[in-house]
């Protein structure tokens, strides 16, 4: 099926809960971009050219509708004087908290577009904007609560209870930083500003409303006034705060596998906003097989529905996530026939017997088996069956065409007996020859003739 919308249009419509031609897909490529280029995380995140190439590579491989430019929640903290420890296969970690060491916010360095690695992020955005004008670029900024924790350390949790005014003042400071970052990313060409605030998963709804709601709501308002889109990401178990997150009025909320998508869908619908997530990062995307990913993506798609849902991993992709696993997600979203195939195979009984095919083969003819979803509802299946029948006709009894629809028990048994993993597929005398694509008539003819010659029938 030909895409009729650009990624940008698809994301914009999905975020407004309008109809789209298919569910949009946003792989949260962070240091995984470095993995695609064979570059370690500590090098990748300091180099705008590498980031642009890594994200570009991910766009080619995964055909997403939207993609983050940089996924690193330490950029602002580092520019404000927090020490970070670099790693080869993860974003850096903050290891010092200046506000816990006696400094006050006014002692921190003034943040501008030239601070720390901010120019790297903005330059990568500009490069990607130029090369990919039709994809939705996500500018990720550290949410005010997580930034406050970076700056002040975990004492902030107790200060919330013991000195709430001080914590509010700190969040006000962090709010100014988030507004600056959002503004720079929008100037550089981002379509969506994603406010990533994972540490809010650690607090209760009353604290969320008291400390996080005011700064974040104003930030989303600012983004809306500039006619850009916003998303609120939270990783971790944050179910208690989902209604409050929606009430901050982002265009979208995105969550991870800790929170049931069904619940988020319900709350987001009630608030009239879109939602995204929550593909399992480690157990499936990183450690699963492409087949497992397909089934998981299909289930996630079924839970998310087709209104206001954006398919995405739960959080930043594990650096070494196998590309074929992410391509499996793309396949489920972009290829309706393949989706139907996976659905049918999934619902089939696993204990299907594999039939003995000894009597199926015949020394006096070539046996052409076409495995289809079923040729009446799947156009490519129909064309493949017709092409085979047409090519076989001149050989009369010497060539036999059989269609096996995987919607039947016999079809499923044949599929497993022949080792077929896709539809439509043509198998000649047990050899898988044509997968998905309808081959030119000449190629089919050649294949039939070769099989006949092998049997000395030609």
């Amino acid at each position, binding site marked *: 099926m030909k895409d009729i919308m650009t990624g940008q249009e698809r994301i914009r419509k999905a975020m407004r809960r309008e109809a789209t031609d298919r569910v949009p897909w946003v792989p949260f490529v962070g240091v995984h971009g470095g993995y695609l280029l064979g570059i370690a995380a500590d090098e990748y995140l300091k180099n705008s050219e590498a980031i642009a190439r890594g994200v570009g590579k991910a766009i080619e491989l995964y055909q997403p509708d939207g993609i983050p430019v940089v996924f690193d929640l330490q950029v602002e903290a580092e520019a404000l004087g927090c020490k970070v420890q670099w790693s080869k*296969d993860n974003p850096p970690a903050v290891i010092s908290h200046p506000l816990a060491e006696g400094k006050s916010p006014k002692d921190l360095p003034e943040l501008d577009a030239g601070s720390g690695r901010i120019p790297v992020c903005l330059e990568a955005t500009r490069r990607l904007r130029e090369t990919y004008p039709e994809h939705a670029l996500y500018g990720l900024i550290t949410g005010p609560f997580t930034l406050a924790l970076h700056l002040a350390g*975990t004492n902030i949790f107790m200060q919330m209870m*013991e000195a709430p005014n001080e914590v509010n003042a700190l969040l006000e400071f962090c709010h100014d930083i988030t507004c600056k970052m959002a503004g720079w990313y929008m100037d550089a060409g981002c379509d969506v500003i994603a406010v990533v605030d994972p540490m809010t998963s650690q607090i209760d709804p009353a604290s969320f409303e008291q400390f996080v709601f005011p700064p974040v709501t104003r930030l989303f308002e600012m983004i809306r006034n500039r006619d850009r889109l916003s998303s609120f990401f939270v990783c971790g178990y944050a179910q*208690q705060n989902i209604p409050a997150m929606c009430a901050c009025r982002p265009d979208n909320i995105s969550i991870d596998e800790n929170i049931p998508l069904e619940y988020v869908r319900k709350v987001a619908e009630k608030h009239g906003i879109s939602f995204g997530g929550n593909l399992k990062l480690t157990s499936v995307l990183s450690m699963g097989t492409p087949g497992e990913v397909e089934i998981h993506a299909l289930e996630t798609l079924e839970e998310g529905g087709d209104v206001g849902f954006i398919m995405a991993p739960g959080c930043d992709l*594990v650096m070494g996530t196998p590309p074929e696993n992410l391509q499996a997600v793309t396949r489920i979203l972009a290829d309706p026939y393949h989706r139907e195939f996976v659905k049918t195979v999934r619902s089939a009984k696993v204990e299907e017997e594999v039939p003995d095919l000894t009597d199926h083969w015949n020394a006096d003819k070539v046996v052409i088996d076409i495995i289809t979803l079923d040729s009446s509802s799947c156009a490519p299946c129909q064309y493949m069956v017709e092409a085979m029948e047409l090519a076989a006709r001149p050989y009369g009894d010497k060539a036999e065409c059989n269609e096996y629809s995987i919607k039947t028990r016999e079809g499923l048994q044949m599929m497993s007996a022949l080792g077929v993993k896709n539809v439509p597929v043509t198998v000649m005398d047990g050899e898988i020859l044509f997968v998905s694509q309808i081959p030119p008539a000449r190629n089919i003819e050649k294949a039939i003739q070769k099989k006949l010659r092998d049997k000395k029938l030609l």
Partner: protein
Amino acid sequence: MDELLENIATCIEFGKINTGSPFPPDMRGKKGADEYTREALDAGINPHTVLTRGLMVGMDKVGKKFRENKVFVPQVLMSAKAMNTAMEHLMPFFYSGDISAKGTFIIGTVFGDLHDIGKNLVAMMLKGNGWNVIDLGMDVATDTFLKTLEGHPGAVVGLSALLTTTMANMHQIVERIKEKKPQTIVAIGGAPVTQDFCDKIGADIYSPDPQGLLEDLDNKLFAR
């Protein structure tokens, strides 16, 4: 006596430290865990009773509420702070032998990982539950765990990791501990860790929350 112990438990449960502490707002100006613990000891209540029927009852309640998502990290930290204040009054009795710890628990975030909120929470809950806790901090090497274990035979080891990449380091540490000291109970935890993973790497205890760990430890000790 019962009233004093109940008051201690309530103060720990709700994170009321002392008369001057502003949290929780509805207990403002009232006595806290600090004052009630002192009063209990002055009234001649056995320190072990103060620990088990006062402090531990309060920590148990907050642990259960945390598990049920009724309270979150800030509230648990306030409870732990109240408990630490009360514990200061009890420390001399630990040294004198009037109170004995349930056991020693060596805890740390595995090497390569610099996240400690979860680890700190677990350490606090363990202390409040009568364990002698040795906190090795973050980014802890395998050898440091082994060396500490040498000095504390029979101690339980707890490993924390927040990153999927450092989970692999957890595997390495468990292997080395089991090789050198096969009898050691090793508990693991952290956001990406699962029971599956625990089984795979041969660790003994996994729990998604501190309360589960405390219960599992009690069961293991009982089994011993």
